[in-house]
Each structure stands twice: as C-alpha cells, then as structure tokens.
C-alpha cells in the first residue's frame, strides 16, 4: 500500500525451504523490493489471532505455533519457527512496516488436519519434499540434495541483483519437477493446495494482486495454477472437523534438530542461525566461534589455527566446486587443523554450536499452554488446589483418588515442577502410605510453560521428559533412579526407553560396585511394578542381564587386591546382590550366583571379609556342606594366614551374633573348629576372635556363653525342645494369633 503499485501480474509467490536461512534473506529482499499489500503464509489459519504476539518484545524465537484439539490436548501439531525461518522473517517484515501489512495463515486449518489423523505431528510441510529435490539435485550433479539446495539457494548471498528472479526460476524448476513426478500419493497436498488457493482468492478480492505468498517451494506451481473456485471447493467439502485451540510455545534449537516427532528435522539449526545472523564473512566468523568454544574447553587453538582452517575449508570447497565453504567443509577443516583428526572435540562442536542451546521465549500475556490446562483440569478432578501456603498431604495408595494424586505429583516432579516434595511419613511406615509437602510457587507456572515443550498432557510430557532424561543420563545410578521414578509415576510408556538406557549403561559400566548398587533397586522396582500393575517383564530382563554381568565381573573385582575399606563396601554389595538375586526369577541364575559365591569363598586373593561372608551365605542356603565349611574356616584361620585377613574372615562369617545363638549347627561349626585349634596356636587366634565376638551385644554374649557351657548336650538339645517350650506346638494356642495377623496384613477396614 505504501509502495508503488506492482508492475507484474498475479501475486508474488515466494517458494522457500522451511527453516532455510538463505530463503529467509531472499524473502526479506523480495518483500523489500515488491512491497506487497498483504503477506500470506503457509500455516494454520487458527493462528491468525496469535500473530500480533509475534511483534511483542517478549517474544523471542525459536517458538512454535501449537494447535491442538480442544477436548484432547494430546492431539496436537506444532509449527516451529526460528529466527532464520522465512515464515518468521515474513511475519516480522509485515509487522515492522510503517503501516503494518496484514499477515494471514493460509494452510488447511488445523481443525481439519487434526480431525483427519490423530496428531501425526507437524504438517509434512515441516520438511521439504526430499525425494523430488533429490531428483533435481541429481540433475545438477549433486549426491546430496540438501547440499544442492544450500549451494543454489541458501548460499547465494542476498540476491541483491534480482531479488525476485531466483524465486521465479525456482518456481519453474518445481513446476517441471511436479510435471515429471506428478503429485501421486499426496492426496493431502491437493486438499491443502486447494484451500490455499481459496484463501488467495479471498486475498485478491481484498487486496488486489499485490499480495505475497510465502510457502514451501513444492507448492508454488500448484498455487500458481489456474483452477476453478468450484473445483477447489469440491475438494474441500465434507472434511472432518474438530474444535481447535492454539498457543505459542517456546521452542529450542535442539527440538528443531530432532527428526521425526515434532522436530523440524533441521540437523544444523545453530549453523543456520549463524548464517542468517552473520553480516559478512560467514565462514571466518564461524571458525572463530568454534575456536572460541575450543579455547573455553582448554584446547590450545591459536589464530593461526583459524587462518589455516579457513584456508583449508575454502580450498576444499573449491575442489568440490562449491560456491562457498559449507558446514561440511568447515567441520572437516576444523577436524584436520584444530582437533588433530579426532572426533571427540568435534562432537562438542556439533552439540554446542551446530545445534546449539538456544531457548525461545513467549510473552507472559500469551494464551496458556495446553499442559497448564491439562494440569488445571486434573487438579480440579482430584480436588487438589494449588495453594501458596505449605501444607502436608497424607496419601493412602490403596484408595483410587489418593493413588491418582500420587501419580500426578510424581509426574510433576519428573517434569521439574516441584509442587510437592515427598516427606517422611509420620507414624505409619507402610509402603502404601505417602506423605507430601505441597506448596505452589508462582514461578511454577513458568516451569509448566517450559515443560510445555515436552507434551500437551502431564502424562505425555512426563513420558517424553523421562525418555529424554534417560538418553542424557551418564551414570548407571541416575538411570536406575529414573526407572524407579517412572514406576512410581506410572509411566509405563517411558519404561522401554529408560530400560534400554539402563541396559546400555550397565553394559558399559566397568565398576562392579555400581552395577551391584543398581541391582537391588531394580529388584525392588520389579516388586513395586508387580504391585502397581506395570508390565515388569522388560524390567526383569534388564535385571537378569545386570545380575549376569555382576556374576561375571564380581570375582575378578574382589580378587583385585582391595584395601579394607573397599572390601567392606564390596561385602555390603555381595549381600545386597544376594538378596536381590533371590527376588529375581530367572532360570539358572541362582546356580550361577552360587558358583560365584563358591569361587569367592575359595579364592585366596579375595579379602577374608568377603570370603567369610560368601561362605556364610552359601552355608545358610545349604550350598556348602558343613565339612567343607569347617575346612574353609580352618584354612582361613590357620596360622599362615595374615591376621587381619583371618580376622576379616571370621567377622564376615559370624557377623551377626544373634544367628549364632539360634543356629546351633553354626555354633557347633565354630565350636568344633575352636576346640581343634592346638594350644600353641590358640593365643594367636584369640585376638582375632575377640575382635568379632567382642562386638556382640552383652545379651548375645551371655546367651552364647550359656550355650557353649551346655555344649556337650547339644546333640540332645537338637531333638528335644528349648527350655520353656513343649516338645510339640499347641495348635489351639497358635491359632489365637491369627486374627491379629489378619489385621496386620490387611490393614484397617477401608
């Protein structure tokens, strides 16, 4: 309106590659040159109402336009926009004019797309049609279509000479391509294009021919084609429809980079942002940036390195016949010049610069994200009010509402929304009770908005977050904890990913102590899993694999010359694993574990503490005959054994005195051995025994003493009854306990 009337006929069709920085620059140049009266953009028309927010100073890309079914936030689609997206540039251009130019979205409404499929993700427009582009690239002699596009379109500078010519040429090429390939199999495209044409007709009535359309290059020929309004209308009748709500949500470069799902499949958003933002000398600036990052990581990178890298990248581009060094050339130059040919620093560069950590922002006044709405709905249905005052909440997990509350709180915690924190239960210690401390801080709303990128419902978001956390976790312990939390939060859909990560970490972990630490938690989870009705078979497989690895690695780890402290720690692990393996129901595992214990008990290089413990565990489960135990004891405590080791053995073997009191067989073993120690050696053994037996409680010591004094009678004692007991139990007296037991096990009447 403010510019001169356009001389050409028909609207200005700007075919772009979504998220292409070169396209974005070219679009801006073309808009500046043509000054259209309106800008139409490929995107859901439901977003029109939200467009003014794009001009808000609080709005910072990357952001995404989100559309979801009003009654089912899980059915949603995102249209991500980065600063370098041509669509974003066009929106901003229109808003920045002295007299703002109207902007409209013209794609098929989300109301139809969401109704047609239950949210298969963003419109396919999120990616350029790779296949036909590949054909075009091949014609030009390129093996990589993305690179061809970059050379021909993205790297072509500002196109200052003829800002519109390139778009015309591209439109023609696409036309030829669509003629050659047809649009077979793209029925949805036909509908979408028909809708876009309808919207263009409406725009023509309003603004005349002087409007511009920014859309995926693939659509250009179809939008320029002459069709009748009636034919288009026919295509559009009878489409299913749902009620749709829209919102802006903050987005990240990392999610732009994610292929599939809601990602835009842009592998190098950081590089694109750089290309778009750099005023001049993009390659030099890029390599300087990389050098800066490497220096921060304490790599020695001098300006000379940068110079060499720039030269190498330029020469490489020349050899490959490219107009400008691209991402591949610069990274290859960096690898050869700055990283000594290693891929490790390069991975860092990929992560921090090529993808980057940019997080978008959405102004406070923007409509709420669906996650917030889902949360509010759940709070209402569970009668769980968000209050700033801190209060305590007691939950009885056997009740349905309480269990649902627990799930919600656990899920929110997984999402980093710390509304409730678990507190120690007062009074009752039962596993069916949970105590929470609730407090709603205003900033939690921000957390909810941030968590909005993970999904549209609390459950979906927590699942996605747990999966991402599992992929990112470094240590085995983190993943085990995560698996437990997933079970608590009832996220059975996240479990496969978490368990995969768990299996991977376990496979790579060389520290058997860490493996051993992880196993009991897993075995525990397995039981919880049963209680809470989650599918535990996958968990069992992972736990079984973990146990297998422990069986292989435990003996060498114990025989590796441990000091006393490490031995004590490992002893604890041996015990914990022993308990856990008993819970695992895997074929042959028990025997293998017994074999491991036998090896531990019989190997000289294993510290006495562990050897003794292993012997005892074996004895307890009947895996070691009494004679053999006696032999081992004699060996361990013989004069040639170093005293600390021998002391450790007896400590490990007889650490709990109470059992010694009650298990006469055990006592007899110790007794027999002690009685057999020659007099001359007895004084040497005495300190060792004192160390162990001296630590017993006085009561235990006294009982032991009495038992030993009665020693010779133990054969008779075994057949007879202990003092104060009848020879046989009295059933009627025993039955009297049952009502109390029933009460204990079943809990109070609900």
């Amino acid at each position: 309106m403010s510019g001169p009337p356009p001389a050409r006929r028909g609207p200005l069709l700007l075919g772009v590659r979504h998220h292409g920085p070169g396209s974005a620059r070219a679009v801006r140049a073309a808009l500046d040159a043509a000054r259209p009266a309106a800008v139409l953009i490929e995107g859901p028309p439901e977003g029109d109402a939200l467009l003014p927010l794009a001009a808000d100073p609080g709005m910072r890309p990357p952001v995404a336009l989100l559309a979801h079914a009003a009654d089912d936030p899980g059915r949603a689609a995102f249209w991500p926009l980065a600063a370098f997206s041509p669509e974003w540039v066009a929106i901003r251009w229109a808003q920045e004019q002295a007299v703002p130019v109207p902007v409209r979205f013209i794609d098929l409404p989300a109301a139809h797309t969401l109704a047609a499929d239950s949210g298969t993700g963003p419109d396919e427009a999120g990616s350029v049609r790779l296949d036909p582009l590949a054909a075009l690239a091949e014609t030009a002699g390129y093996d990589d279509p993305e690179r061809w596009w970059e050379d021909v379109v993205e790297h072509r500078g500002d196109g200052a000479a003829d800002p519109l010519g390139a778009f015309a040429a591209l439109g023609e090429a696409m036309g030829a391509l669509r003629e050659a390939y047809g649009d077979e199999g793209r029925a949805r495209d036909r509908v979408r294009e028909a809708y876009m044409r309808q919207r263009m007709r409406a725009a023509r009535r309003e603004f005349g021919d002087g409007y511009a359309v920014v859309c995926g290059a693939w659509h250009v020929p179809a939008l320029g084609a002459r069709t009748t309004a009636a034919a288009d209308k026919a295509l559009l009748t009878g489409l299913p429809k749902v009620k749709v709500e829209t919102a802006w949500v903050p987005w990240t470069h990392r999610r732009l980079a994610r292929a599939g799902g809601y990602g835009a499949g842009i592998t190098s958003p950081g590089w694109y942002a750089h290309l778009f933002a750099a005023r001049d000398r993009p390659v030099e600036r890029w390599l300087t940036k990389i050098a800066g990052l490497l220096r921060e990581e304490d790599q020695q990178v001098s300006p000379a390195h940068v110079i060499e890298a720039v030269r190498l990248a330029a020469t490489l581009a020349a050899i490959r016949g490219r107009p400008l060094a691209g991402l591949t050339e610069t990274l290859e130059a960096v690898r050869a010049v700055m990283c000594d040919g290693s891929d490790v620093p390069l991975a860092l560069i990929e992560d921090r610069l090529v993808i980057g950590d940019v997080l978008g922002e959405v102004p406070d006044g923007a409509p709420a994200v669906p996650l917030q709405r889902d949360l509010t709905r759940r709070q209402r249905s569970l009668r769980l009010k968000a209050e700033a005052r801190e209060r305590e909440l007691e939950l009885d997990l056997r009740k349905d509402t309480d269990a649902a509350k627990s799930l919600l709180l656990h899920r929110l915690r997984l999402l980093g929304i710390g509304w409730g924190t678990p507190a120690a239960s007062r009074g009752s210690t039962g596993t069916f009770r949970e105590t929470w401390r609730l407090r709603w801080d205003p900033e939690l709303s921000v957390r909810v908005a941030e968590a909005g990128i993970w999904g549209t419902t609390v459950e979906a978001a927590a699942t996605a977050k747990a999966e991402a956390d599992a992929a990112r976790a470094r240590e085995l312990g983190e993943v085990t904890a995560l698996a437990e939390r997933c079970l608590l939060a009832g996220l059975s859909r996240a479990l496969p990913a978490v368990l995969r990560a768990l299996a991977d970490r376990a496979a790579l972990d060389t520290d058997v102590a860490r493996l051993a630490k992880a196993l009991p938690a897993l075995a525990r989870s397995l039981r919880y899993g049963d209680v809470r009705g989650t599918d535990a078979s996958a968990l069992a497989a992972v736990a079984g694999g973990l146990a297998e690895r422990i069986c292989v690695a435990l003996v060498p780890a114990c025989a590796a010359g441990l000091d006393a402290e490490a031995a004590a720690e490992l002893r604890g692990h041996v015990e914990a694993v022993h308990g856990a393996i008993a819970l695992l129901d895997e074929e042959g595992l028990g025997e293998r574990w017994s074999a491991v214990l036998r090896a531990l008990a019989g190997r000289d290089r294993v510290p006495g503490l562990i050897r003794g413990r292993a012997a005892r565990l074996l004895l307890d489960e009947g895996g070691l005959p009494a004679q053999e135990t006696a032999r081992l004891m004699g060996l361990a405590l013989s004069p040639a054994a170093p005293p600390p080791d021998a002391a450790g053995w007896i400590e490990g073997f007889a650490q709990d005195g109470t059992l010694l009191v009650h298990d006469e067989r055990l006592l007899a073993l110790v007794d027999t051995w002690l009685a057999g120690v020659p007099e001359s050696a007895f004084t040497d053994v005495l300190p060792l025994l004192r160390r162990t037996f001296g630590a017993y409680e006085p009561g235990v010591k006294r009982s032991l003493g009495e038992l030993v004094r009665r020693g010779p009678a133990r054969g008779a004692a075994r057949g007879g009854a202990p003092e104060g007991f009848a020879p046989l139990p009295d059933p009627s007296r025993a039955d009297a306990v049952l009502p109390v037991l029933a009460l204990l096990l079943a809990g109070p009447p609900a």
Partner: protein
Amino acid sequence: MTMPENDRGADALRPHAEDAFAEELKALAAADDRPRPARWNLSPWAVATYLLGGTLADGTVITPKYVGPRRIVEVAVTTLATDRALLLLGVPGTAKTWVSEHLAAAVSGDSTLLVQGTAGTPEEAIRYGWNYARLLAHGPGREALVPSPVMRAMAEGRVARVEELTRIPADVQDTLITVLSEKTLPIPELGQEVQAVRGFNLIATANDRDRGVNELSSALRRRFNTVVLPLPATADAEVDIVARRVDQMGRALDLPAAPEGLEEIRRVVTVFRELRDGITADGRTKVKSPSGTLSTAEAISVVTGGLALAAHFGDGVLRPSDVAAGILGAVVRDPAADRVVWQEYLEAVVRERDGWKDFYRACREVTA
C-alpha cells in the same frame, strides 16, 4: 652422491606406485584441464580421482586405490595444496602408508623420497649427511654433502614422506619444525641453506594407538593437518578386505584355499567389529571394548593363523575351534580387565546367538 638408481624393472617384487599405475597417471594428466599447483603433476581434483577411482572422459578406468570415505581423500589432497604438512593417523592396517605412497606418486610422480621412522633414525636421515671420503679429500663443500630425502624434496619441489613419525626420537622429530615452518634447511657447516621451492610438502604417517613411543611435540603437531584413516565402515567391506588379504597370504604360505571358511571369516570380523565398536551388529546391545585395537590387520592374522591350524592339524576346513584361540589372544591383551570383557561378551552376546553354538563352545573351551 645421489640415491642409487632404482632398477625399475617389471621384476621388482613390489613396484613403486608411480610405476605400477603409470598408465593411469598418464591418462589422468592428459585429461586433466584444471589448474595445477606449482610443480604438481596433476590438479588436486585429478589426484583425488586417482585415489578414489573413476572413469575419465576418454573411457580410461581409474581403479580405486583407497576404499573409504571420499572426504578423507579430499581433505588430504587439499592439505597438500596448502603449505601445511599432512599427518595420516590410524590404527595398524588402515592403509596409511598405502595412501601416503599413492598421494606422493600422484602429486610428484615420485614416491621414493622416503624416511622410515625407527627408534634409531638419526638427524642425518632428515637433514643431510657427509660423504667422508670426499670431505677428507676435498674439504667441506656441497659435493661432500649427502642430502636426505627431505632435502631433495625441498630442492626439487616434491612431496617427501616420513613413515612412523612417532617412532622417531623426539629431538630428531624436532628437526622437522624448521623445515615445516621456515621451509628452509640451514647447512651451518657451509654457511648455506637449502630453501624449499614451491611444490614441496611432507606426508607423515603415525600410529595413533601406539602413543607410548614418542609423542609428537605440540610445536610439531601444529604444523600438520591431521587426517585419521578409519577402519572399514561396514562389515561387508571388512569381510571383503580380510578374505582377499587372507587369500593372498594363504597362497604365499602355500596354505590350501578354503572357500568354506567365508562363514568363519564373517564371524571373526563380526566379533572384532562388535567389540571394537562397543555395540552388537544389530544395534541392540552394548558391549565393553577391550584394550587391544582389534584392527582389520589383526582379523587377517587371526584368520590366517586359523587356516594354518586347519591345514596342518585339522581337516583343512576352517572351523570355530581354529579361530577361537586366535581371537582370545587378540582380544585379551590385559589379562584381568580384558578377560572380563571377553567373558561378558561370550555370555551376553555369543551364547544367545543362533547358529553360534559351536563357536561359543570352542571359545568357552579356550577361555576356561
């Protein structure tokens, strides 16, 4: 005075690259119309084609010399066209020397300007030595000087090669710093210097698993662009390489050919790749990696050893038991840690695999 003339006959046990592929080089030079750096026989593009193979406009087929990622060859050739030297790194058996020889042959038409790095390589091998008879008879002068391959390359603007750079003692390595940064080699005894003319560059190879020997000083490292030659990318490529090399070696050792052994070769390669990559071929299970390199070269020697065993003590057919001991020896280098890795691998991966029962049993037997 100069290097002894080579008897470049067809009888040579192993002819130089520039002789073996003289026809291809000639055809490439004829077809090459792109700009060539000073004193290069070919343009960088043609050098890359020479290494990677292709078909020229006149129909001449250029055989691929290096089977691997294109970008590696391109970076290497490009480096030679700048004034930075090229360092080829890689585990044994990744064709470092082979690539270096062919690069030199294609660029300068001469791959013989070679310094072999050993623990005993003296400074003279990189700078110059003296012909003492002449020195005594005529006194110091250029005639009494015996130039090193590096010195000749500098004077003639060719590509010099240094093999196994990290085996050379550190002080001798540092002789290269002046050569690479100042592009000159001073001869203080004569008060002269030899300045490198355009076209000079240097290709060094080094084994990156063998760091212990003589670490490259950072001063020297800065003068090199580093290219790491990777192990074969796919199992099929590696099986192919192993089978071909084993076949050649088997003929040299007069071992009977064992076509049925391909199954066993594939198994050895699979085991090596899985342990090396730390993940099973189906991408489902991660495994720990042992401390050894498990390079293709080692796979070749395991299979050759197995073949010898089968030929002399077995029925001539390569069986799991023939390769099991060899694999164990290659995998378990560190008796404690690697043994755990190997046992875990056996129990977690091999035991479950269909059709690997014999192999599992054979391995258990030698491992126990």
